[in-house]
């Protein structure tokens, strides 16, 4: 059974229809990519799942409908959304950002979790007191990811992790995502403009166009298909 399922989901910003009937599914332990051009509705898809935007249609998490839950409640269900622009608290320290990530958890050791995420992001351990706003773009992205991990999420929503980052840094981040998926079985839904790198890491992908799913399939197939690549993925 799919961990996350969207059936015919629609969402609007005022009169603008951002999503016009999107259906997709993410299985437990999978990495799924959502691709497409600017304005295709990728970010809105994630926002619909995390409850940040009002949407219609069916959204099922673990077989149960999400209903009209807001972002706070959905976070409590175990969905960690790393938004576009990272959403780090720039005025707070690295450690405080991480602690906030663990907000929904009751019990369990936060320090233990900090140690755990520091394994994936070794630099964090020595920079706990630093203001998050003074970190580089890549470090902020990693911090946002680390923060999401603090809550032991069942599913990670990643919005354009490559945005504003150098190619090497992007590779590193995707490598870590891949590692998390392999070692911890973390289910990931990643939205990306950089289709090439997303397809390397994801096992399945959906390509959105104007708020609808235009093409979908196993990443290997999509990457091989010249027409798909040229028409939708830009390479």
């Amino acid at each position, binding site marked *: 059974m799919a961990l996350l399922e969207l059936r015919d989901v629609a969402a609007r910003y005022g009169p603008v229809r951002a999503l016009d009937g999107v259906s997709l599914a993410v299985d437990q332990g999978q990495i799924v990519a959502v691709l497409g051009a600017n304005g295709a509705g990728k970010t809105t898809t994630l926002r619909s799942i*995390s409850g*940040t935007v009002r949407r219609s249609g069916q959204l099922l998490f673990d077989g149960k409908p999400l209903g009209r839950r807001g972002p*706070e409640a959905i976070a*409590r269900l175990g969905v960690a959304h790393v*938004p576009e622009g990272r*959403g780090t*608290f720039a005025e*707070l320290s690295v450690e405080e950002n991480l602690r906030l990530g663990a*907000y929904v958890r009751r019990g369990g050791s936060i320090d233990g979790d900090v140690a755990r995420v520091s394994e994936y992001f070794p630099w964090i351990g020595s920079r706990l007191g630093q203001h998050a706003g003074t970190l580089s773009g890549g470090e902020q992205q990693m911090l946002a990811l680390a923060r999401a991990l603090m809550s032991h999420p069942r599913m990670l929503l990643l919005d354009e992790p490559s945005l504003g980052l150098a190619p090497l840094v992007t590779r590193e981040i995707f490598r870590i995502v891949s590692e998390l998926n392999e070692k911890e079985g973390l289910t990931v839904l990643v939205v990306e403009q950089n289709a090439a790198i997303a397809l390397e890491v994801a096992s399945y992908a959906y390509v959105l166009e104007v708020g609808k799913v235009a093409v979908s399939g196993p990443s290997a197939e999509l990457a091989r298909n010249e027409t798909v690549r040229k028409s939708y993925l830009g390479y």
Partner: protein
Amino acid sequence: MAEFFQQVVAGLATGSIFAALALALVLIHRATGVINFAQGEMAMFTTYIAWTLIENHGVNEWLAFGLTLVIAFGLGLGLQRVVIRPIERAPLLTTVIVTIGLVLIFNGLASLIWSAEVRAFPSPFPNDTWEIGGVAISQQDVGTFLTVLVLVALLWAFFQFTKVGLALRASALNPDASRLVGVRVGWMLAIGWGLAAMLGAAAGMLTAPTVFLDPNMMQAVLIYAFAAAVLGGIDSPFGAVAGGLMLGVGLNLIGTYIDFVGAGLRLPVALLIILVVLLVKPSGLFGKPITRRV
């Protein structure tokens, strides 16, 4: 010299009252961008509640102080949930007007329930002085200053070291990201209002012994609190406290040493300070310079 110290101590006492109320204003402004014009009247109203506890129910003064703080917290929290939340999405001015409505309501209610006659309010501090090196220091002044200091310190510790405190700070800084990590931002705002009301209650209860209890007693204090908040930086909690203390001491010293500034001109001097600071450095002494996001 002796007079200088006396004025400084007295200034610190009044300044700490300004600081408490200014901190309340800053708390709410940081979290919501709203200036709560009713902060003073809420403080006055909760002080009346304290008075009722002490006079009509024979509650011990310190216990009444504590109880009133709790009641004030509930009042602020309730107000946010009932009155402020429905207009969250409306333009800022709407909320400002609502706080003006609250001013009328609290002021009117106080007159209605307790009548407008001026009353004495018992002070938990003895009306004595200490003699230190020839200087007479009022125990009331020291007590006031220390009480506010303790309250502010407790509040600071709450914000720095507790989970809820962290969530409160995060909600004020970035409500959207806070929601994504599971913080119920709406309730955080309510708690913010509750804490602000608590600070106001403390300010009111510390003011009343000196100026006597009447429905209009906090109006001048509110203006001084605005001046303190502007001076220190309307978004800086530290600035609010520092600004309040500086204002209190400054006004006292100006009043003592500069001749034509009599008691009647203290308020205009405070207003002048507001204007000058706004023109020269709007973000205040300790605030971050205002950057405009494009």
